[in-house]
């Protein structure tokens, strides 16, 4: 009961904030909604026994990435008037429409396939590492053993991205 209540509340807030992110006129507001959205997602993770991921979500997403967005918004959008919604290509309306349709389709697919899966197999059973609530250490083990190479690749990706971002954003010395 409490769980359901929590879920529905969170889901409503997340979706609502998502809509706000997409629809806010001011980019700064958009960012703000995004942060709150992420925090709520983090809470959702906690309810799903994923504390570590939740903390990472807050730390990296809310504390890092979104701050970056905020920075860029401030750098870029200061003098600009809020965006106009008139659409010369009429893409917005068709996009909305098509999005809605696809969502509906996906809902159908997902619900039916999940139902089918549950009906046929009873419950979905795991095949990997079982975990408990306090799973940070386990996560570390998995990450540094089975997923070592992807992990290293990710770190390499981050390094490359860092260098790339610096190169892109740095004013050339001559300028």
């Amino acid at each position, binding site marked *: 009961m409490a769980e359901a209540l929590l879920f529905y509340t969170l889901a409503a807030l997340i979706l609502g904030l998502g809509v706000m992110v997409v629809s806010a006129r*001011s980019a*700064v*507001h958009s960012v*703000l909604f995004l*942060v709150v959205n992420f*925090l709520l997602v983090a809470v959702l993770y906690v309810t799903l026994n994923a*504390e*570590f991921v939740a*903390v*990472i979500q*807050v*730390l990296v997403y*809310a*504390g*890092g990435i979104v*701050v970056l967005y*905020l*920075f860029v918004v*401030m750098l870029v959008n200061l003098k600009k008037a809020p965006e106009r919604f008139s659409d010369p290509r009429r893409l917005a309306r068709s996009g909305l429409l098509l999005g809605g349709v696809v969502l509906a389709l996906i809902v159908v697919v997902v619900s039916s396939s999940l139902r089918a899966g549950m009906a046929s197999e009873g419950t979905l059973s795991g095949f990997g590492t079982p975990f408990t609530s*306090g799973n*940070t250490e386990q996560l570390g083990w998995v990450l540094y053993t089975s997923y070592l190479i992807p992990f290293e690749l990710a770190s390499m990706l981050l390094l490359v991205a860092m260098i790339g971002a610096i190169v892109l954003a740095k004013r050339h010395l001559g300028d």
Partner: protein
Amino acid sequence: MLDTVVIPLLKIAVLVNAVLVAVTFLVLMERKVIAWAQSRLGPMRVGPYGILQAIADPIKLILKEDITPVKADRHVFTLAPIMSLVPALVVFAVVPFGPDPLYYIGDINVGLLFIISVTSIGVYGIILGGWASNSKYPLLASLRASAQLISYEIAVTMTLVSVILTTGTLSLVGIVEAQQESGIWFAFIQPVALVLIFIGGLAETNRAPFDLPEAETELTGGFHTEYSGMRFALFFLAEYANMIVISAIVVLMFFGGWLRPFPNIAFLGFLDLLPAWIWFVGKVFLFLYVFIWIRATLPRYRYDQLMSLGWKVLIPVAIGNLVVTGVFKVVF
């Protein structure tokens, strides 16, 4: 219901109030200590030796008119100080004041990460506050402040990782217990980390000598130039609460938290006569004193110095410390 809802709520209430009260007295303490450092008396009018100044100041702030600038983004302007204070207070949820569950609200297995992540949210208050004021000094200050916070956060987090390597747990209670087991405060095992975290902590709380975001001489009042009254008070509270948080982290991680000195030496057992939380609070206050002491002593850094210190000194040293710790961990 009692255990899961009421008692935590009670604890929260007590803790929040305790922190707020502590902040008021911390302000008083700061004024007094700095005054003494400068051979002055400090506040003397309100109450004996000015003790009641701690109550007078909040009252003044609450009663003051709450001004919102015309061109400001009203909602964000209001939201910013709240976003600043809330993380500062939330952090206390995982700070253990003593060994029993009675002394803390929650001991989660990612406690340290929780603290890091939550404090990283605090930066929004500053940025948004500066931006929402729609005024140039606050904006500049907020950009400076957020850059500073993000930069030093990297160094501090790196350093924390090396401490975590030695303890093997992220739980704050666990870290203190690890120190109890090893019989030595981590200050002696990880002295470099201690120095790094303390310097980083100074920068993260915008304290002297890193108080550039509120450098009056350059930026009038920093990011909260346009703020007054209660909203200003919230920023103020957040800053001092953050000071307490940093002190608490330092104490927990390096000075044995609630443990007495030399926790493994039996004949010092009489020191346990003082309850654990007194030890903890005492140590925290000691570090708050150091904060103030440093403010009274050191001049402010220039901004480029600040950044190069962060990126070119602290982060490399932190990485080096991490590597050395890792090597030691592997070898021994």
